C-alpha cells in the first residue's frame, strides 16, 4: 500500500544536491538563475561551482537565451525562475532559441499553482505547463517528490531535449521510496481499482491517494496514476485505464484548460473514448493566501477529489 508523509527535506535542496552531485562527474552541467538563487537553492550550486553558475539578474528572457547559447556549446544548463516567469514570460525564448534550435537544457519553474501561496495571483502559475505544452518536442515533468527527482535525473542528462521541471520548492509529500524506477513519459500506477481512474501529478498525487482511501472506506475502488510527464503523455496507460474503468478523473494544481486534463482528453479521444472529468483550476486566476487556504478555495483537497469521483461514477 502506498503511504504519504511530509518529506524531511525541501525539494529545492534535493534539486541542488543532485545537480551538484552530477556536475561533479559531468562538466557539461551549468546553472543559471534570475535573481532568485536564494529562493531556488541554486545558491548551493554557485558555492560548489562558482565558475559554472551565472546569476542573470531579474532578466528571465535573457537567461533562457543564454542557456540556449550555452547548450549550443555542448553544455547542459539548468535555468530557474518562479514557474510564472520561467514559462509565460520566456515562452518565445524557450520555443525558438531552445526547442526549435534543438537545445538540451532544463528550465526549472518553481512554486507550481497554489504553492505560490503568499506571492499571490500574479505569481501563481496555473498556466505554465499549458503555455509550454504546444512547443514541439518539449518535455514537461511535474515532480512529485525527492525520490522521483533523483530518479529522472539520469535520463534528463543523457537524453537531449528542452525540459521543463515543475517543482515545488519547499516541503512536499513523499510518495516514493528510494530507488524506485521512473521513466520520463511512463506514468506510475500507484494503486489499482476498477471503479474509476484518477490521473494526477505533483501535490495532487498525495491528495488523490488520500481520496482513494476515503473512497475505499465507502466501497469505491479507484486506480491512482501519477502522470508526472505531461508531455509526452503516457497514452498507453491512459487508454488501458480508460478501457478498464470507463471513467477518468484528472486532478491537477493547474488550469484544466491546456493542462493535464486536456492532455488526457486528447489521448482518450485518440485511443479509447470515455468520460473524463477534469478536476483542477476551472479557468480562474490565482489569489493570495496560505497553501492550505488556497487548496480549499480551489478545491484541491482529497475530499474534493473524492467528491468529484463519486459524482463521476454516478453520471
Amino acid at each position: 500500500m502506498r503511504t504519504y508523509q511530509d518529506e524531511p527535506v525541501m525539494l529545492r535542496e534535493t534539486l541542488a544536491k543532485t545537480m551538484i552531485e552530477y556536475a561533479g562527474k559531468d562538466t557539461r552541467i551549468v546553472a543559471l538563475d534570475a535573481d532568485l538563487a536564494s529562493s531556488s537553492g541554486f545558491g548551493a550550486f554557485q558555492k560548489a561551482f562558482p565558475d559554472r553558475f551565472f546569476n542573470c539578474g531579474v532578466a528571465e528572457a535573457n537567461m533562457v537565451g543564454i542557456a540556449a547559447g550555452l547548450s549550443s556549446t555542448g553544455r547542459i544548463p539548468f535555468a530557474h525562475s518562479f514557474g510564472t516567469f520561467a514559462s509565460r514570460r520566456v515562452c518565445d525564448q524557450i520555443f525558438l532559441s531552445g526547442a526549435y534550435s534543438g537545445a538540451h537544457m532544463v528550465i526549472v519553474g518553481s512554486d507550481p499553482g497554489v504553492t505560490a501561496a503568499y506571492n499571490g495571483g500574479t505569481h501563481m502559475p496555473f498556466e505554465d505547463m499549458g503555455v509550454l505544452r504546444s512547443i514541439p518536442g518539449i518535455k514537461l515533468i511535474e515532480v512529485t517528490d525527492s525520490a522521483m527527482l533523483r530518479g529522472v535525473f539520469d535520463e534528463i542528462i543523457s537524453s537531449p531535449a528542452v525540459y521543463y521541471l515543475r517543482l515545488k520548492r519547499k516541503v512536499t509529500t513523499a510518495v516514493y521510496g528510494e530507488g524506485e524506477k521512473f521513466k520520463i513519459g511512463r506514468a506510475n500506477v500507484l494503486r489499482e481499482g476498477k471503479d474509476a481512474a484518477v490521473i494526477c501529478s505533483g501535490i495532487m498525487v498525495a491528495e488523490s491517494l488520500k481520496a482513494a482511501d476515503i473512497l475505499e472506506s465507502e466501497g469505491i475502488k479507484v486506480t491512482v496514476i501519477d502522470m508526472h510527464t505531461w508531455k509526452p503523455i503516457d497514452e498507453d496507460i491512459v487508454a488501458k485505464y480508460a478501457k478498464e474503468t470507463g471513467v477518468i478523473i484528472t486532478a491537477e494544481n493547474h488550469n484544466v484548460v491546456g493542462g493535464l486534463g486536456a492532455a488526457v482528453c486528447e489521448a482518450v479521444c485518440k485511443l479509447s473514448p470515455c468520460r473524463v472529468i477534469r478536476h483542477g483550476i476551472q479557468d480562474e486566476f490565482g489569489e493570495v493566501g496560505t497553501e492550505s487556504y488556497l487548496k480549499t478555495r480551489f478545491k484541491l483537497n482529497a475530499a474534493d477529489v473524492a467528491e468529484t469521483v463519486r459524482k463521476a461514477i454516478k453520471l
Partner: protein
Amino acid sequence: MPEKTEHLRLRRFAETIRLETLKEFAELGFGHVGGAMSILETIAALYGGLMKIDPKRPDWKERDRFVMSKGHAGPTLYATLALLGYFPIEELKTLNKGGTNLPSHCDMHKTKGVDMTTGSLGQGISTAIGIALGQRMDGSGAYTYLAVGDGELNEGQIWEGAQFAPFQKLTNLIAFVDVNGKQLDGPTEEILDPLDIGAKFAAFGWLVKEVDGHDVAAIYDAVTEAKQSGKGPYVILLKTVKGNGCDFVAEMASNHHVQFDKEKMLAEVEKTQKRLEALGGESA
C-alpha cells in the same frame, strides 16, 4: 514651491504611512519590508499633494495615476490609500490573508485606488507609458507616475519602454528609480551591476534628476520643478536605503523578504510613533 509648513505636513504624512505600513507587517510576521520602506517617501510626496486624485472617485477618468511597477511594495501603497480614505484603515489588517483585497503585489481590481496591476517586474514601465499616452489623447492634462526598482532595471522590457517614452515626447510621464543598491539575491553591484543609471536613461533621451529618496520635501520639489519645465519624460533617481525607517530591517544585509518576531516589529511601530510625535501637530 511649497512652504515650510507644507514640507512639515509631508513629513508627518510619510511617518504616518510608515506607522500603518509597519503595523500591516507586524500583523503578518513577514513581508517585503525592505523595498516597501525605500519607496515610502516617494509615495508620501505623490499622494500627499502632487497627484490630482479624489479618493471618493477612484475611477475618475481625469485623475493622475501611479504605477507601482515594483509591485511587491504594495503594502506601503495600501497604507497610503487607506489613510486617504479609499477604504477603511482596519482593512490593512487583512494584508495577504485568504480572501483579502490587499495581496502582496498590487492588483487594480482588488484594491480601490490602485491604478495598475503589477508583480511581474519590468511590465510597469510599458503600462505607464500606455496610460500616459491615453491621457494625452484624452487631453486631460493628467500625469502618470511610475516607480521601478534598481534590480528591476535588469529586465529588458524596462529599456524597451525607456526607448519609446522620449521618442513619443511623453511630457506627462515621471518615473522614479528606487536606487537602494540591493535586489533579491544581494547588492545590485554584485548581481548585475547597473553602472551609471542616470547616464543610461539620459542616453535614451530622458531628463534625469537625482534626489535623496528619504527627503519627502526634496522629492516634492523635484517633481514640481519637472512639471513646471513642461519637458519630459523625467526620471528621478532616488537615493535610498533598503528598509529605511525600520531599523532592524535596514541593518540586515539581506532584507528583501524578511521574517521577524511580532515584538520586534512592534518596537519599530513604537519608534515611528515617537518620531511622529516629535514632528508635532496632528497625524496627517
